[in-house]
C-alpha cells in the first residue's frame, strides 16, 4: 500500500507545480503584452534618431576633430561589454543564450590579446559569468526594483558608459541584448555602441541630394546628439530585452505546464493500475480464505 501512497503524493506535488507554472505563464503573458507595446512604441524615436545621426554624420567632412564617440579613439585595444540579462530565472534559455554569446565574444577578444571589461545589467548575467570572468566585471546594475522601464532608467547607464569613455577606460563598447522577434523567437544581438555605427553609404538623406543646414553648428549638434543617441540605444536594448525575457518565460512556462500535465496523466495511469492490482490481490485472498474454511 505504501506504493499507492507515494504515487498519490507525487501526483499532488506535480499538480501543485503545474498550478505555479501556469500562473507564471499567465503573468508572463500579461507582462509581455505591456513590454511589447512599450518596445514598439519606442521604435519610432530610435529610428528617427538613427536617421538624423546618419544625415548629420554623413553630411560632415571627414576631419581629425570629429567627436571621439563617432570616430572612435583610433584604437581597439580595450573593450567594454554591456550585457543585458534578466533579474530572475525560469525563462528557458534566455539568459543562457545571452551569456553564451557574450562569453564566446570575450574569449575571441582575449584570444586576440585585447583587454575586456564587463558591465552587467541584471544579476543573472553576473551570476553566470562571475564563475569565469569575475575579475572582468566592473559592476552590476540592479534592475529588480524597476517594474516598467522608463527612459530615465537608461540614462544613468549611458552616463556611466560615457564617463568611462571620457576617462579613456575603453575604446570600443559593445552591448548584448535579446531582440524580440516573436514570443517563440528572441535573437541575441550584438550592437556596437561606441564608436557609433552609422549607416554610412555616403548618400545624403535628402531626395534632392542636398545637405542639411545645421544650427548652431554640426559639431555642437553632434556633441548634443551623440550622448542622446547612446542613451536611446541603451534604452532600446533594455526594452527589447524586457520583452524578450517575458516572451522566453512565457514559452518556457507553457511547456513546463504541458509537461506537468503529461506527467500527471502518466502517474494517474500507474496509480490506477496499482490500485486495481491491490484490489485483485485482496479479492483473491478473500476467496482463497473462504474456500479454505
Amino acid at each position: 500500500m505504501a506504493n499507492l501512497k507515494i504515487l498519490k503524493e507525487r501526483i499532488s506535488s506535480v499538480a501543485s507545480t503545474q498550478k505555479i507554472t501556469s500562473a507564471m505563464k499567465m503573468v508572463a503573458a500579461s507582462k509581455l503584452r505591456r513590454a511589447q507595446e512599450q518596445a514598439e512604441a519606442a521604435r519610432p524615436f530610435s529610428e528617427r534618431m538613427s536617421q538624423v545621426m546618419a544625415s548629420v554624420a554623413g553630411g560632415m567632412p571627414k576631419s581629425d576633430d570629429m567627436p571621439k564617440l563617432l570616430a572612435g579613439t583610433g584604437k581597439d585595444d580595450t573593450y567594454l561589454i554591456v550585457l543585458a540579462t534578466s533579474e530572475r530565472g525560469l525563462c528557458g534559455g534566455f539568459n543562457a543564450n545571452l551569456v553564451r554569446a557574450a562569453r564566446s565574444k570575450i574569449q575571441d577578444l582575449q584570444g586576440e590579446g585585447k583587454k575586456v571589461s564587463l558591465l552587467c545589467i541584471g544579476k543573472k548575467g553576473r551570476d553566470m559569468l562571475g564563475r569565469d570572468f569575475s575579475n572582468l566585471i566592473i559592476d552590476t546594475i540592479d534592475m529588480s526594483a524597476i517594474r516598467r522601464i522608463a527612459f530615465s532608467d537608461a540614462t544613468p547607464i549611458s552616463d556611466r558608459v560615457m564617463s568611462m569613455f571620457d576617462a579613456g577606460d575603453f575604446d570600443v563598447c559593445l552591448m548584448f541584448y535579446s531582440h524580440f522577434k516573436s514570443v517563440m523567437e528572441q535573437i541575441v544581438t550584438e550592437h556596437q555602441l561606441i564608436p557609433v555605427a552609422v549607416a554610412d553609404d555616403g548618400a545624403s538623406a535628402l531626395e534632392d541630394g542636398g545637405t542639411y543646414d545645421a544650427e548652431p553648428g554640426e559639431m555642437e549638434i553632434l556633441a548634443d546628439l551623440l550622448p542622446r543617441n547612446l542613451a536611446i540605444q541603451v534604452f532600446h536594448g533594455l526594452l527589447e530585452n524586457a520583452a524578450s525575457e517575458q516572451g522566453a518565460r512565457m514559452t518556457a512556462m507553457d511547456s513546463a505546464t504541458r509537461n506537468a500535465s503529461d506527467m500527471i496523466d502518466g502517474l494517474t495511469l500507474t496509480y490506477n493500475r496499482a490500485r486495481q492490482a491491490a484490489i485483485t490481490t485482496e479479492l483473491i485472498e478473500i476467496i482463497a480464505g473462504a474456500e479454505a474454511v
Partner: protein
Amino acid sequence: MAEKIAYELVSPERLLRSGEADMVVVPGTEGDFGVLPGHAPVISTVRPGVLEIHDGNAEADQIFIAGGICEVSADRCTVLADEAVPVVDMDRADLEQRLKDAEEDLADAKTDEAAHKASIAAALLKDMLQVAR
C-alpha cells in the same frame, strides 16, 4: 494655403503626436523658428520651450518640450523631444509644488550627483512655470 507640412513629435517612450499643419514653430537653441512647407533642410538642437502647431484658423496647439533635436526637410518636421507636456495640461499649482520639492531636494542633497540631478529638475520646472498659465 493649400500645402501643409507633416510634423511628428516623438519622445523616447512613444510617438506623441503626428499630423499635418500649416506651420510649426520650434524653440531652437538659437531662437524660435517657424517651419512652413518648403522650408530649407535644417537640423537644430532644441532648448526647453514651447512648440506651437498652427493649423487652420484654430488656436495654435502649444506643447512644452524639455529640449531635444529637430530635423526639418522640405515637407516634414520631426521633433525628437526628451519630454513633452501640452501646455493646457500644465497645472501651475502642481508645478510650483514640484519646484518647491526639487529645491528642497537640492538643499539637502548629500552627494554631488544628487545635487546635480535636483538642479536640473529645478531648472526644467522653472522653464515650465514660465509658460504655464
